[in-house]
């Protein structure tokens, strides 16, 4: 359920116009972000946390002769808006001058965008979420397993206006159901469904997929760490792309020499195509960025060659190009971010990928991934919720979770086969969603294993 008033685009644009009208001197930008969010969380096969949030914020960025001040507030009455402008002015006027500061983006006014929104998500309420949570729990109950997870539904409206004529807004929605299903013997399975449309989210199907993996993963035993051929399911690939987005595809990281991306250079295998597209309905569309710039499709890696980077107005100015519409809210010291990622499918069925493993490991997903070395693209993390030993193209047995420490550009240079089907995957920690296939990779480094229990 949403607070309709805070998602009225005309009201949002009027609010921004009122905010900007009080600014004197220099350039000004106002960003409005409203959010109605509900999340129903379950654990031990019962709903244990259940929350609703309504919030709306205005963020003001003022620039004048290289000096910038940013202030934000969620108090949106006249006094709150006067106060946020006054605080931004106070910072701007006392700020040190930055000769490298970029002007605000140029632009125009476009109609309110709703490509990424669905009514079923906007109208979802606690009972809607409870119903799908109970469907997951029922699937687990049927297999004598324990279900945990969360179902969230969210409606966001963003509007951006600036003194150079930008006036754009968008409403988007997101529904996301995630579950981990476990037994007492260490078996666990995972599934998720993510869509802009809550009616696409089927708790019974999500539960059934997780239950299937959990049953097969019970009774896991150790396997020695080492380098193995692997099949990585889309859940694992989505996580990998999330981290590549943080450390590699961002023009600021490249400008500062922190990324392995070098335009025109072969950085992965020739069978790899990765791009960002905020307007593709098979993802979770968001068509403008937080500076009000329309998003463009950016081909990041094409045929294994680095072909593009995402830009915001600051990196674009320094690179002598135009923003691709990937700016984050000001002030942003991280640089631009690709958050609608895609990886091209191949031709192999899921069974084919497993069938090609002579002796290798099949990974359902990764957990707690982190960056070991950004420039080399080295990540570490654990496998989770279904890791299997495969021999002679057949699954032999479940194995205990392994730690990997692996250069991803190196791994993506050794992709032997790519799954024919792609799946939309929501990242574990960020808002980055990716549509990706499963991959068969010739060599992947597992550098450790978890303990059975306690000190062992």
């Amino acid at each position: 359920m949403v607070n309709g008033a805070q998602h009225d685009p005309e009201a949002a644009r009027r609010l921004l116009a009122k905010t900007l009208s009080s600014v004197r001197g220099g350039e000004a930008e106002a960003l409005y972000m409203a959010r109605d969010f509900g999340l129903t969380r379950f654990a031990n096969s019962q709903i244990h946390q259940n929350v609703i949030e309504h919030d709306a914020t205005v963020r003001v960025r003022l620039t004048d002769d290289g000096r910038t001040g940013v202030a934000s507030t969620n108090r949106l009455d006249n006094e709150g808006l006067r106060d946020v402008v006054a605080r931004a002015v106070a910072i701007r006027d006392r700020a040190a001058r930055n000769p490298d500061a970029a002007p605000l983006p140029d632009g125009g006014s476009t109609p309110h965008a709703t490509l990424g929104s669905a009514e079923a998500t906007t109208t979802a309420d606690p009972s809607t979420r409870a119903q799908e949570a109970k469907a997951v729990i029922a699937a687990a109950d049927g297999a004598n397993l324990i279900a945990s997870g969360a179902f969230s539904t969210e409606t966001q409206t963003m509007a951006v206006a600036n003194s150079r004529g930008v006036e754009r807004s968008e409403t988007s929605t997101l529904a996301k159901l995630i579950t981990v299903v476990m037994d007492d013997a260490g078996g666990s399975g995972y599934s998720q469904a993510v869509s802009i449309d809550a009616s696409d989210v089927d708790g019974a199907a999500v539960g059934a997929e997780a239950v299937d993996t959990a049953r097969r993963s019970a009774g896991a035993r150790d396997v020695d760490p080492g380098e193995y051929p692997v099949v990585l399911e889309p859940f694992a690939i989505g996580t990998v792309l999330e981290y590549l987005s943080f450390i590699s595809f961002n023009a600021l990281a490249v400008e500062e020499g922190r990324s392995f991306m070098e335009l025109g250079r072969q950085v992965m295998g020739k069978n790899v195509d990765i791009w960002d597209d905020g307007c593709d309905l098979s993802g979770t569309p968001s068509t403008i960025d937080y500076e009000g710039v329309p998003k463009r499709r950016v081909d990041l890696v094409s045929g294994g060659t680095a072909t593009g980077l995402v830009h915001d107005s600051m990196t674009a100015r320094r690179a002598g190009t135009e923003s691709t519409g990937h700016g984050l809210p000001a002030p942003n010291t991280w640089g631009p971010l690709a958050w609608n990622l895609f990886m091209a499918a191949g031709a192999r069925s899921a069974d084919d990928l497993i069938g090609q493993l002579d002796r290798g490991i099949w990974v359902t997903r990764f957990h707690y991934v982190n960056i070991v070395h950004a420039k080399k693209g080295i990540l570490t993390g654990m496998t989770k919720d279904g890791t299997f030993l495969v021999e002679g193209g057949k699954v032999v047995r479940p194995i205990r979770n392994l730690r990997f420490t692996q250069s991803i550009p190196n791994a993506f240079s050794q992709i032997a086969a790519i799954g024919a089907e792609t799946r939309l995957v929501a990242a574990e920690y960020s808002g980055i969603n990716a549509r990706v296939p499963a991959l068969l990779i010739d060599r992947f480094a597992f550098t450790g294993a978890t303990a059975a229990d306690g000190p062992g």
Partner: protein
Amino acid sequence: MQELIDRALDAAERSGASYADIRLVERESESLTVKNGAMESAEAQRTAGLGVRLLIDGAWGFASSALLEPDEAERVAREAAEVARASATARRDPVQLDDTPPAGGRYATPVREDPFSVSLDEKVRILLEADREMAGVPGVTIREGSLDWARERKTFASSEGAHTEQEIVEAGGGIEATAVNDSEVQLRSYPQGGGGQLVTSGFEAVRRLDLPGNGRRIAEEAVALLEAPQCPAGEMTVILESSQVALQVHESCGHPIELDRVLGMEASFAGTSFLTVDKLDDFRYGSDLVNIDADATAPEGLGTFGWDDEGVPAQNVPIVSAGEFVGYLTSRETAPRIGRRSMGSSRAWGWNRIPLIRMTNVSLRPGNGGELEDLISDTNEGIYLETNRSWSIDDRRLNFQFGTQVGWLIKNGRRTTLVRNPTYTGITPRFWGSCDAIAGASSWMQWGVPNCGKGEPMQTGHVGHGASPARFRKVQVGVGRW
């Protein structure tokens, strides 16, 4: 404000709630970043709102709003009741709270110099001075410094009669130098990685850091690391600097002692814990030297407060005593499950989030190993690792891997070769069981971790860890192919 509270709690009672609480929170925060000699960003954020949490038929409901008006407070309470009734349709074990007496009173962080009253010019001056020190070192590619300060005013009231008011002030900062060549990126941070140090204090904490006085040193180390040899691989003796010990405590002790994790309440996201309830008072977590407590009263701790967000008073409880596991972090909902009363670690990140079990200041008590240099001089062969760069741990908090920014090989009791990209890995109880020396109280520091993620929707907790440098034997170092 009292009208807001009364209207919300009355509406909750009329909706059938057996328990309800309301939190009104206003948070102001400001930050400043200087990068490569120019002011990169300056920001002032203000957010305020209320959250109502209640129990109906033994099931939780929570709703929140940014509108601080009596009618809205009443509406939010009714909405929370609707949420609770939806929860009750999939409830198996009714929530039962412990018998913590209702709290009342005020708490404020002791502050000598209000960070909001220090001029922007003065703050920029500190960062630019540190920047100039780093800029004086040839080969540094990126120089960055930041300061952060915040004030949070929070009122908590419950249907049991609790009413507390708190004002928490935070301040801190840090600097970082990065050196880059064709194949390497090397960075050094001060005083710790990940954005610097943050504590509950006034601006005096920032002045004490002496950021300019450490700029040149970290810049020189970043540049030197570009040409340093790769960290060797193998099993060796490791000495960790105190901020890295703090993060080691955070990941391998702080999280697995959260009783909600232990009871499966975080299973689908952050994971569970190897410290299952059968291990309480019956499990060797570390060596005899290892003593860990959770102290919400620690001076300047980032997890220091007057009461948690259930009105439970701040307290100091033992977690690991002479290596034995003796305590959990608990809430009013979870503590009765192990026959105890909450020790007060249920905290929410802001008005729009529910309280979860969060670390307070989970700290390794100092040992009798003297200073860091005493640990090194007492080590024949090994490696000294300083400042976190990377961290990862499995869902039960057993298999961990950390990377640090810098390492020095130790030979015959002396630091020798500088090495780059060091990593180490282990299994939690084995690692802590191998701890054979902990530096003393004079080396003990209270560190802030302001980016502790937990819960759905995600909450970014501010927690603290005190630690001294410590030594561990037979640790696997140098992980992966480089």
